[in-house]
């Protein structure tokens, strides 16, 4: 096929112009200069198909995917709810909101063949043999034998067909004709993990309510263990007898199902509530939902796995501190591929980031402590680009004893609109590493060159050890 770009799919308008999948992009452009194309993204297609399958669940519980671009609905006993078969098809097409080729048949294989190869036919016997979905050689063999439609095959006895064209051909034929059942594997959406405790007597004390939650957590843990899942988000709902309800949510950095850990986080959350949990006349229904769950296989506990235990307790510590102080208060330093020193790193919540490898720096040394924002200082320095001689910071005068520099760092003009134009790039910085008479080392910079700005200002950006 070479390296030519080819069309993978075309819409109705393009089809009317004579374009078809498999055509080289250059040919298609030659026929239709105004052609609009998008790169193929199979993963996004699969996601969209999954979304459509979940949406189709409103018509029938028996929905299955026919990759890459089909959906099979078993509408046995469902059609009358939507105004008959025609009405159901109309509604399903409207819900999909795509160009659809719907087809109805007595079994899944026939419906599939009609949808993909049938056009407006409703009789499978007139379909071409391509509808059997066989390899190209098998199809060629059938055509050479003068068998062009399904009907041609169906009229003949099966045994000679199987002997000549293989058992698979016959099996597919019998599927389409409905002689052999062609069941579908329906896509089942797992019910969300939701538990509820209805109490005959409302509980007033928070401790009692938490005990109920603990029971629910134990139940949920059992269910999740069977499904090899762990929760990442737990929502407890407290319904009061006067119909007021309160939701509390906790999140964890790793999937967990240990009731004790979740209960501890919930306690933490209740303690830090600005508006305390008010039981009123008591909670009569307490619910627990686990809206976000991730795979968590059961783990074999090794002997002397202290390191693993340490990692576990560290994750628990991060979760606990995150619940109490806020997730964005427990952070890690993450490297960023940026040019300016203050943007070359970012603080990201520790719960959602994993430890990586810190890149080896290829620039002159950076101070371990930096001011954000840089602190303005008054400097006496040679004009235009000499080193500083003395500077005043926090009302104190510092004499510069030693200096190194400048390290010139340009502004990130490529991120600025029109930054490539003259005088629009932003101000260049000249960094100096200096030591004052007391022996303290500072990182200071002049913001702007003299040809960029008439009065460049100086800033103290960091402290060296």
């Amino acid at each position: 096929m070479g390296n030519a770009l080819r069309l993978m799919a075309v819409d109705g308008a393009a089809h009317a112009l004579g374009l078809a999948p498999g055509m080289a992009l250059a040919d298609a452009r030659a026929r239709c200069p105004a052609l609009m194309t998008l790169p193929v993204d199979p993963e996004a297609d699969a996601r969209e198909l999954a979304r459509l399958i979940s949406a189709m669940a409103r018509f029938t519980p028996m929905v299955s995917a026919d990759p890459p671009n089909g959906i099979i609905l078993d509408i046995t006993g469902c059609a009358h709810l939507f105004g008959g078969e025609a009405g159901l098809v109309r509604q399903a097409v409207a819900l999909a909101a795509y160009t659809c080729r719907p087809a109805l048949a007595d079994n899944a294989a026939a419906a599939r063949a009609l949808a993909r190869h049938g056009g407006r036919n409703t009789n499978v016997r007139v379909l071409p043999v391509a509808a059997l979905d066989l390899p190209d050689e098998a199809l060629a063999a059938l055509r050479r034998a003068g068998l062009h439609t399904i009907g041609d095959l169906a009229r003949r006895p099966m045994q000679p067909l199987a002997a000549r064209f293989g058992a698979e051909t016959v099996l597919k034929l019998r599927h389409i004709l409905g002689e052999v059942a062609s069941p579908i594997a329906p896509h089942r959406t797992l019910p969300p993990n939701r538990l509820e405790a209805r109490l005959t007597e409302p509980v007033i004390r928070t401790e009692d309510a938490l005990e109920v939650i603990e029971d629910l957590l134990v139940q949920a843990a059992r269910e999740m263990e069977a499904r090899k899942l762990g929760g990442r988000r737990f929502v407890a709902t407290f319904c009061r007898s006067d119909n007021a309800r309160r939701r509390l949510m906790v999140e964890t950095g790793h999937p967990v199902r240990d009731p004790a850990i979740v209960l501890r986080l919930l306690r933490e959350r209740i303690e830090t509530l600005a508006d305390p949990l008010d039981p009123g006349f008591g909670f009569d229904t307490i619910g627990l939902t686990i809206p976000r769950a991730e795979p968590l296989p059961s783990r074999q506990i090794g002997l002397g796995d202290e390191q693993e235990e340490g990692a576990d307790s560290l994750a628990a510590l991060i979760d606990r501190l995150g619940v109490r102080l806020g997730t964005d208060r427990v952070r890690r330093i993450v490297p960023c591929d940026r040019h300016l020193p203050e943007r070359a790193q970012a603080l990201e919540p520790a719960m959602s980031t994993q430890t990586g490898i810190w890149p080896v720096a290829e620039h002159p040394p950076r101070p371990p402590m930096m001011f954000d924002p840089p602190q303005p200082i008054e400097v006496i320095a040679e004009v235009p680009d000499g080193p500083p001689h003395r500077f005043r910071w926090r009302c104190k005068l510092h004499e510069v004893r030693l200096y190194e520099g400048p390290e010139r760092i340009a502004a990130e003009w490529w991120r600025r609109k029109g930054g490539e134009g003259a005088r629009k790039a932003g101000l260049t910085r000249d960094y100096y590493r200096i030591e004052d008479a007391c022996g303290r080392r500072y990182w200071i910079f002049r913001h702007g060159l003299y040809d960029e700005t008439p009065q460049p200002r100086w800033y103290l950006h960091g402290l060296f050890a």
Partner: protein
Amino acid sequence: MVDSVIRLREGEARAFAPEARATPPPLGRGQLHEIHARQEDGAAALAFALCASASGGASGMAILVRMARGGRSRVVLNGDGLALLGFDPTRLIIVEADTELDLLRAGLEAARCPGVELVLLEMQGGFAKYDLTASRRLALAAERSRACVIVLYYDANPRATAARTRWSVASAPSVPIEADGPGKPAIEAELLRWRDGPADRRWRLEWDADHETFREEGNRAPMPCAVVPLSFVREGASGGGGGYSRTA
């Protein structure tokens, strides 16, 4: 009484013994240490804390607990700068607390956590909640989990706490490199208090990039001079010799 006098004498003797003089006591694990510094010497104090506690190939997580500070005097740690001090920035988790109590609670919990190797609590002058009781709690937690707990105390007067060692750290003038540039990081560390030995001593320490630690100036291993490698002469290879032997 006599016993204590003798012990004091012993302590003095140790202070003047050459090996006691040579190296400052390390910030051991399972202990609480306090480092006092002025705000301008913050980087020096941080470098001292990270390096003194990292001796011995530390690889566990480090947790820095500090006050959440808004406004114009926010100080952030720079990963590249920490990496230059031999500290892997991916080991660090920074926790910010709103109140003094939250800070101490978070610090205590971190100190109790088994997977944590280093806990740094950053405090600033007049931190009323940090007293003998709070520091004793931290020390006990450190003892149990074998974590090294360090209180970085800026702009404050030392008070009675349960810390094993108490230091005062400041930047020191560096030895200039060529063309009058600032040299390697240098700090002046004064041992104000040490439970296991004599205090009131000071060291002038300089960064040693080869060993990724601070060392006393002028007290380092002698520079290896040019050594001509010895050629191996195989025993018995030459018939006539026989007198050569392999030198290892």
